């Protein structure tokens, strides 16, 4: 078993009259992990949309990092629950990112405002034997 240090900070000097700066970090237990880069291939919910988390790939808890690499703000990437509801989880504008927990027993896919936008993503957690290799189910 390994671990991943996930650190986050945000800061601003002009939203409030006082400077704001927050920095946190967490050590996540993980068995495996890789940072992938892939093309968005669909513009709506679709069985062949890019899968970013495979159902039951992890046990107990898993965290998904995803960054939309498109440089145009309006070229959004949408993360949705592919297992049961097709419900939208997050809408990521160009060059923005998210770091979210995912329900380990659901599959998550993404579609975009347009195809061929690139995304960078990674999932971290303890591996489950219930799923095959990541993105190979």
């Amino acid at each position, binding site marked *: 078993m390994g671990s991943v*240090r996930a650190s986050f900070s945000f800061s601003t000097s002009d939203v409030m009259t006082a400077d704001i700066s927050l920095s946190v970090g967490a050590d996540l237990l993980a068995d495996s992990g890789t940072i992938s880069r892939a093309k968005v291939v669909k513009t709506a919910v679709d069985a062949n949309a890019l899968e970013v988390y495979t159902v039951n790939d992890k046990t107990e808890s898993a965290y998904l990092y995803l960054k939309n690499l498109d440089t145009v703000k309006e070229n959004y990437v949408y993360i949705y629950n592919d297992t049961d509801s097709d419900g939208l989880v997050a809408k990521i504008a160009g060059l923005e990112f998210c770091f979210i927990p995912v329900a380990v027993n659901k599959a998550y896919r993404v579609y975009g405002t347009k195809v061929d936008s690139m995304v960078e993503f990674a999932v971290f957690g303890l591996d489950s034997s219930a799923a095959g290799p990541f993105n190979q189910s």
Partner: protein
Amino acid sequence: MATTTATITLSSGDLTGDALSLSTTSTLTKAGTVTGLTQFTGVGRKTRTTTAQMTLFDGDAYANGSHKVYLRNTSTVATEYFTIEINSEQIGKIYAGDWAFFPWEANADTNDIKIAASVGTAMTIEYALFIDE
């Protein structure tokens, strides 16, 4: 224009053959523009002494936009977690010490962000919202 930056760093020396190291920064802007977000809730905390679900951010209270949400479970007990739900969609659990950051559209009155503590013994969530209005 107000400028707020968010940075994530992921690193590990024992997960892969080569050391894993990623750091990326994003400037927080309003939906579809390069205009910075100008409203902020501040960093707050809410302590829950029940496992009942509560609405942390009400979709009816914010315009359709690209708000940014920060959440952190301040617990130090490894088994304690907050379940996070958006628009009745459970997105996952934040365990002790863990955090999440994501955009929130608030595109409908029902597009609430709700949380539920795993135990009813004083669990605290830290939160902040940069508002797109």
